[in-house]
């Protein structure tokens, strides 16, 4: 059987229960070879549980998993030589140096001494970590830890890479570097399964996205298809102070051609089928005591898609893991 054209990852009816709680409730998807697939959802949606089942760290209660055509449902070890995993927390060995950690991870995949040392040195150079190669992992910054954890995940050149929240909890500059590294890996042909709660990150990196909420995939499609219905929309975001959320009803009555929502504290989002006039809206708000600081026309983004599909506020994603400044 030619496995070149088979999905790199195939999940059929995956179910995982923890007691009474159904963490993953019948998830179906396919990831094509070489694709960068995004798995987007709020905290507790089932993203990490799904990754754990796909990588062999958890057993599904029902459903089937195939990795590169290999049935891993009952034997999760069967395809572990093909995959690399970067967990949501950096879990390398604190007492080992960066170089030793990479060599150790390579040895777990049976790589010989010379090969693993060459590969570790190359990855340290690629990830700009050579100056810290001999330092203990415990002394690394969060951004450096994240980069070394990604390097450890690809040390054995996996065909398929699972990245669980790769930019959560790291500074903006490190997050940008990590996203560049992910894009480079994708360009080199690695299939990537990326979970994230950063919508802009998913939009920027992924070709196809699945939205998961409460253990169920509520929508999956190519990013361009998800955005297409919004292309004709006109969006405006107003930042203001002193305008209560309850005031949205008054806005809707005064401007019935537009739809209003509040994606966050002090933010009003205006959506219309025709270009949105800024002046009347700002005057309306200021007459009611609000202090408008910015009115910005926006391009359609996955945020709107997420809100439309899930009915959830985008804040629910951003607030879930306020560990750092990794937001794109």
């Amino acid at each position, binding site marked *: 059987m030619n496995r070149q054209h088979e999905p790199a990852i195939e999940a059929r009816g995956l179910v995982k229960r923890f007691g009474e709680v159904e963490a993953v409730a019948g998830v179906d998807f396919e990831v094509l070879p070489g694709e960068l697939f995004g798995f987007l959802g709020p905290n507790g949606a089932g993203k990490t549980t799904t990754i754990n089942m796909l990588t062999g760290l958890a057993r599904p209660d029902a459903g089937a998993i195939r990795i590169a055509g290999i049935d891993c449902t009952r034997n999760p070890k069967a395809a572990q030589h093909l995959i690399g995993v970067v*967990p949501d927390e950096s879990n390398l*060995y604190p007492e080992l140096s960066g170089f030793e950690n990479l060599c150790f991870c390579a040895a*777990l*995949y049976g790589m010989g001494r010379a090969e693993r040392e060459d590969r570790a040195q190359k990855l340290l150079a690629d990830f700009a970590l050579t100056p810290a190669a001999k330092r203990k992992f415990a002394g690394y910054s969060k951004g450096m830890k994240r980069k070394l954890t990604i390097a450890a995940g690809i040390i054995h050149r996996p065909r398929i890479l699972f990245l669980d929240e790769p930019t959560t909890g790291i500074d903006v500059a490190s997050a940008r570097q990590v996203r560049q590294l992910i894009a480079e890996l994708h360009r080199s042909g690695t299939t990537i399964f990326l979970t994230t709660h950063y919508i802009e990150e998913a939009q920027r990196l992924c070709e196809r996205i699945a939205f998961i909420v409460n253990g169920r995939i509520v929508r999956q499609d190519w990013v361009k298809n998800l955005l297409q219905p919004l292309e004709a929309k006109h969006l405006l975001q107003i930042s203001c102070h002193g305008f209560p959320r309850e005031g949205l009803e008054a806005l809707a009555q005064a401007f019935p051609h537009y739809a209003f929502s509040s994606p966050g504290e002090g933010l009003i989002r205006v959506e219309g089928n025709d270009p949105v006039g800024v002046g009347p809206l700002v005057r309306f708000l200021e007459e009611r005591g609000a202090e408008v600081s910015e009115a910005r026309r926006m391009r359609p983004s996955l945020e709107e898609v997420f809100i439309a599909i899930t009915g959830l506020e985008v804040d629910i994603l951003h607030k879930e893991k306020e560990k750092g400044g990794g937001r794109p």
Partner: protein
Amino acid sequence: MRCGTAFWNILAKDMRSYYLKPPNISWGIMFPLAWTAMFFIKSGSGLGSIPTLLPGVVAVSILFGTTSMLAVTVTFEKKSRSFERLLLAPIPLWVLMLAKTSGAILFGVANAFVPVVMAIFLADLSRIQWGLFLPAVFLIALASTFLGLFIAVAVSEVFEAQTFSNFFRFPMVFLCGLFFPIDKLPLFLKPVSYALPLTYGADLLHGAVHGRHALPYSLDLFLLAGFCVLLFALSLRNIRRRWIA
């Protein structure tokens, strides 16, 4: 080849990270020394009592050395999630766990020889049957390590592992015939003694050091090996059930 490379590197990393650290080396030496001194002073019967005490001290040194280390190398790594890296490696679980426990087995064997080296300078050990003593030490180290693994897999915190270990360790010290003959125990405790792996290890050691033993050597060896297989199999089953659940 892949399994061999992974096995060796897991063992080498653990030796470097845990077993060859100065605090563990000093503990591995001091602990058997303290036990030896304690029982030697308590017996009050002079240097002549060393061959009688040696099997018990050797067995206790192995038991405490191995079970204490497993709580760190397995439970701690599980809690810090670095153990997940090992579970993701494309090697069979039994190879992985054997690699993970090999350091403790070697540590236990090394601990066993601390009182032996001491005794060489203080007593005549020419009667020791080394051909029996060495396999007995190895099997006791194996059984104690797998007991430690069984405990480490059953808990989630290092302190729980240490507490739970004591639940097994201290009764074993008094019930396995290490220092008190089993035939002098109350009748209701004797079945408990024979349900503990160290009883058979202690019998082998007593036989090897001063010739007095209760069961045939072949039965001791067979039952001790059986306990090793059983404890390792139960540990693997628990890892699959609890950690890859």
